[in-house]
Each structure stands twice: as structure tokens, then as C-alpha cells.
């Protein structure tokens, strides 16, 4: 990739507007990341979404994204990292979500699904 004014601007925009969590108008593209990830993950993991509950699911997706940059054009590679994140978060919770078995089964399914 050449170092053009366009690439410089895109690098800066991505860093400041897409990856950084901020409030107000300037945070809209980060919030869209959350929205997009919610759409991808809730469609891919409907049973987990239902088991965790809407508010908790949104919370975990937001936390997940605040620590990680979305990497994949198709969104599908979000699934395995999200499951790992949720498993790690579950271990910190008291009481835990009680979903370890479900999450591990989903991890197994995600690993064996066609890419």
C-alpha cells in the first residue's frame, strides 16, 4: 500500500473513529461496530443469545469489541474469539453464567464448520 494522503487519512479515521470507544457524535462508527457485531453474533449464535439474555449479550459484545479490533470482512471470524472471550468472562463472574458447556459446544461447532 502506498503512503498517499488518502491512506494516511483512512489510517487516522480508522484509529480515531472506528477503533476508539468515545461518546457523542464522534463515537458513532464505534457504536456501529457494536451494532454490526451484534447482528453477526446474534444470527450465528441464537441459542447463546437467548440464554445470556438481550442486555447481557449487548454488554458482552460491547466489552469484547472494546478490547479487540474487528478483523474479518465477512464477520464470521468474530465468532470464535467472542466465544473465547465469553468463556473467560464467565470464569470471572460470581455466580457464573452457567453456560460453559454450551459455549464449549459452540466453540467445537465453530471450529469444525466450513470456512
Amino acid at each position, binding site marked *: 500500500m502506498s503512503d498517499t494522503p488518502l491512506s494516511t487519512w483512512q489510517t487516522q479515521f*480508522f484509529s480515531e473513529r*472506528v477503533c476508539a470507544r468515545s461518546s457523542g457524535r464522534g463515537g458513532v462508527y464505534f457504536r456501529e461496530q457494536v451494532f454490526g457485531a451484534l447482528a453477526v453474533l446474534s444470527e450465528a449464535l441464537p441459542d447463546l443469545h437467548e440464554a445470556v439474555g438481550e442486555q447481557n449479550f449487548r454488554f458482552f459484545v460491547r466489552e469484547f469489541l472494546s478490547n479487540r479490533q474487528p478483523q474479518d*470482512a465477512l464477520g464470521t471470524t468474530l465468532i470464535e474469539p467472542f466465544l473465547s472471550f465469553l468463556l473467560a468472562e464467565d470464569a470471572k463472574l460470581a455466580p457464573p453464567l452457567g453456560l460453559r458447556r454450551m459455549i464449549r459446544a459452540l466453540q467445537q461447532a465453530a471450529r469444525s464448520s466450513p470456512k
Partner: protein
Amino acid sequence: MGARMGISLRREWVEPLLATGPALPALEVIFEQWVFASESELRQLERLRERHPMLLHCLSMNIGSSDPLDRDYFEQVRAFADRFAIAAVSDHLSWRSIHGVWSLSLLPLPRTEEALAHVVDRVDEAQACLGRTIALENISQYLPVPGDIPLVEMFNQLHERCGARVHLDLNNLLVSERWLGETPGAFLDPLTADMAWVHVAGHDDVPLPIDDHSRMPTAACMELLARVAPTVPVILEWDRERPPLQKLLPAISAEQVQGV
């Protein structure tokens, strides 16, 4: 009353559409939703193709990015379009990645000659890969960008310089107006680029809306549709809180009677 409306297909609507759905004037298929489909699912799509004119909408051409075009992706799109004999293919006038890191959102381009020339080159390359001309959709834009070329002029120039048609999204014009104050008329009145097809959708009516496709098109969207009076297919998009197809199709018919 104008032309009937088609829909942007979602996976849970496939079986009901095969079972009982009427022939639609057009059916939009989103490429990314079928990338990992099984052969039996693709055969279902072939059966739908026999009954409905099909349009192919893509999310990952990444046409405005400074990253290199992903030629593997374009080969997949071409194979898909060939298999289903789809002539009309679109993506967005936007970018999604930089240095190989991808956004889930469609990001706005600067309105500069540099960006325009960059996109012209990329569209030429994309069209050569696909063996088809492409259309580009106007995205919902939430923040100002550098440059003083009007957005509509970007589309007019793209059509003139590389043959790209405009995939007009009326809801996106309305969402962008709320954030940036640019009126839909400022885009529609000077638009000379040929149109490929039109998107309509609804959004949550909050002070600063997000393009979430969460409801039927707003009255303002249907008024714009009547104003444009397109002779190309009109496609309804619905993503959040989707209704079952059995509820959606009658709602579309009612909406058309009132709005177009």
C-alpha cells in the same frame, strides 16, 4: 401505483418464499450471506432464481480502500454471479479496511479528486475481475469528510469515467441528512448517472438515527420514492427485528398502495 417492490432476501425467508411466496419483481441476494452456504442451500437459491429476477449485492469489495483489492473475493463473486446468471452486481461507495484490519461498517470516503481517481481505478479493476459493470450505493454517512466535491458529483463522475451505475439508497439519504444536513434533493436533482436499482428501508426515528433497517420505510422514504419514480427495481431492506415473510409481503403491498 408504480412498480411492485422486491425484497432483499434473508436466509429465514428462503423456505417460505419457495413454499408459498408470490413471484417478486426482483430479489436481491447478499453475497456474504451465501459464502458459507451448503450445496443444498445453493440449490434452494437456484430454485428461487427460476422464479425471481435476481440482483447481487456485496459488502466487501472494499472499493474505496487504500488496501489492495482482494482478487480471491472478486473471483468468488464472479463465480456466484455466473452460477445464478446474475447480471446486476453492486457494492458501496465506501471503504472497510486499512492495513488489512476490517471494519464491520461501511466507512465514508473523502470527497476529493484523489479519492475519486482512486475509486475510478479500482472500479475498472473490479469490473475486469467480474466481467460485469458494477453499481455503487450511497451509504449512510454520519460524520463530515474532507473535500468539496458534492457526493452526487462523485457518482456522476464514476458513471462517466468508468461506467459505474448508482445503486440509490433513499433511506441512506434520509439518515445522512439527519447527521450532516445534506438534503436528499441536493443528491437527487443533479444526479445524471444511470440507476441500477433502488433501496428503501426504515430506521429507528431517534434524533440521530443509525441505518439499522429496523422497520418499514418511513413516509419520507416513500415520498422520495414517488419523487424519483424509478424505472429500475425497488428493493426493501429489513435487518433488525425482521418480521416473518408471511407478514412482510402483505405489508409491502399495502405500503405501495399508499406510497407510490
